């Protein structure tokens, strides 16, 4: 663990706390589900079944799952255009997700949001932003509401390394530190801001930005579920205890495309095959599987988890494909509550 905190709270001391076997198994199940759902959606896009390209979470599963395993019902999560994983990590509805990505009537946002805006308030997803960094203000505001309501809720904001270049991150760190808001800022540094390698557009380290605000900033291996979980635990606990925000930088890698359609328009490669292959050797899923095997979970149990995830994804895809389109007139009833647009 790589800790940049200059003003570290003792609660952020990297503990050696370990998830129980059942906790690990549950997290593994979520990660596998995300992987199989994303692969299936990639296939559905290739097959021409989706209205638009999708931004898939493959390779980053440990980030959403390790953080969200630390949350409770009622906590808020601001998500991104690469947000299917966050939703599923919050126990999202697989059918509703597929229907939304297919743009259909029974999608969680009635087909109005689509893949980049997968939000479900019943699961605490307070919006998914295709404005890079657009969720930072929303999560900070949700943290303010949580503080006002005093029920121990926390707000988590997922954003990418690209969003760390928006001014909102500094503004959020400043306000959340001043007001000790129950906020956890989670940067998923996946190596690219769209197609731009992070190093070409990001100076210094992202986690270390927190230090200037007196906020703990912690960078961990985002492909290591246990490390993510260990870092998220104290950050969430600190927020819940009213001690203020934490910035987590989860160093991971997007092994699939920025957007599934990219091979159709890229004029040149933006990374090497070797780089992608190298990161595939650090795939977060086998690392957890190996750990479970070492803990005595049988291969057939683990295979069953995988088969069940594939089945759920296939079933949800078939559901979405036959689900009706939304009635186009629905748009006129959604801009305002109880008011003509």
């Amino acid at each position: 663990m790589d800790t940049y905190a200059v003003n570290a709270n003792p609660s952020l001391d990297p503990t050696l706390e370990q998830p129980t076997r059942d906790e690990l198994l549950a997290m593994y199940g979520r990660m596998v589900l995300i992987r199989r759902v994303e692969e299936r959606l990639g296939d559905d896009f290739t097959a021409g079944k989706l209205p638009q390209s999708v931004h898939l979470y493959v390779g980053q599963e440990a980030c959403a799952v390790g953080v969200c395993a630390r949350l409770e019902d009622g906590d808020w999560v601001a998500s991104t255009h690469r947000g299917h994983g966050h939703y599923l990590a919050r126990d999202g509805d697989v059918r509703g997700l597929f229907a939304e990505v297919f743009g259909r009537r029974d999608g969680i946002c009635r087909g109005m949001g689509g893949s980049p805006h997968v939000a479900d308030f019943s699961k605490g997803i307070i919006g998914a932003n295709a404005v890079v960094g657009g969720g930072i203000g929303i999560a900070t505001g949700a943290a303010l509401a949580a503080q006002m309501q005093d029920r121990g809720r926390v707000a988590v904001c997922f954003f990418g390394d690209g969003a760390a270049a928006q001014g909102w991150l500094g503004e959020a760190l400043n306000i959340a530190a001043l007001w000790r808001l129950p906020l956890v800022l989670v940067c998923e540094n996946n190596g690219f801001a769209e197609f731009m390698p992070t190093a070409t557009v990001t100076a210094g380290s992202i986690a270390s930005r927190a230090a200037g605000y007196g906020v703990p900033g912690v960078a961990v291996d985002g492909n290591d579920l246990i490390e993510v979980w260990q870092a998220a635990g104290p950050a969430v606990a600190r927020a819940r205890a009213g001690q203020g925000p934490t910035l987590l930088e989860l160093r991971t890698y997007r092994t699939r495309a920025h957007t599934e359609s990219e091979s159709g328009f890229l004029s040149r490669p933006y990374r090497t095959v070797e780089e992608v292959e190298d990161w595939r050797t650090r795939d977060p899923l086998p690392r957890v599987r190996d750990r479970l095997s070492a803990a005595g979970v049988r291969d057939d149990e683990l295979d069953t988890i995988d088969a069940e995830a594939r089945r759920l994804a296939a079933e949800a895809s078939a559901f979405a494909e036959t689900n009706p389109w939304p009635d186009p007139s629905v748009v006129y009833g959604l801009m305002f509550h109880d008011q003509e647009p």
Partner: protein
Amino acid sequence: MARRRLMHALNDALVEEMERDERVILFGEDVEISMFGDTKGLRERFGPRRVRDTPISEGILTGMAVGAAAAGQRVVVHMFMANFLYTGFDGIANQAAKLRFMTGGQVRLPITFMVLYGGGRALGAQHADTPFPMLVNLGGINVVAPTNAADTKGLLKTAIRGDNPTVFFEPGGRGGEFGEVPDGDHLVPFGRAAIVRGGGDATVVAVGSMMKPALQAADVLERTYGVAVDLIDPRTLVPLDEDAILASVARTGRLVVVDESRDRCSFASHVAAVVGDRGFASLRAPMKRVTVPNVALPYAPPAEKPLIPNPERIVAAVLETLGRAPLATP
């Protein structure tokens, strides 16, 4: 009835709504000191949790308003000068105006963005804009521009109590003006124009701060030219009471819109478009817009003053719709 300054009516509305509903919170830059007076005394009264000075971070304040509202608060965020809406526009245009829509209607967003707008006071180009058009165009934001103390109070209370995002435009330089404010829980509904005068010779629609020069123009028109105008205050730009405007134009056949937006795509242009679409058959003369030219507002008072719609320009526009010319001024 009570005689109140416009700024005090604003303050009264905030006090009453914060008393009424403890979910109402207010934050913004210098809301404690309150340079304008509209938020004065609120921190003392409601405490530092509900009333907060923020850093000068307009970029995130708007997004925070959306998050706090989505998570159950009723949010009043003071954006100070209307020009700072530009700085914080993502939270308004991409978030507040769209979050309900994008989520298929899952969320209500009770947010009131308060701003002071308008020129004529040598504030310079970055403190004097009237950015109605960009807000009216968003679709998901109510836009409110009161002209007097009573409506200021009633409309602000409606905004805070409502379940939709609203940008509330405080008329700059009018805060000290007195008006009669009804007693009790005075609410003014959105989407209902006020007929300030009923004359019948021409229709004048005057928005926000422009009501004052429009009233002065109406007096001159009546006294000097024997022309009596219908003077309409739309009060809310979104939703817009199109029917009230169309009904008046149906009688008068003539329309002048007075608006402090810059001319191109001004709110006045929209009103003219609506009347062109739905009231063309009633028109007996080309419609006139009295607006700010397509320039920034300068600091030097003699350069700024003629850019803001004034009674002389309004009188000339009304007379033009009647095929008449102003008398030469000595």
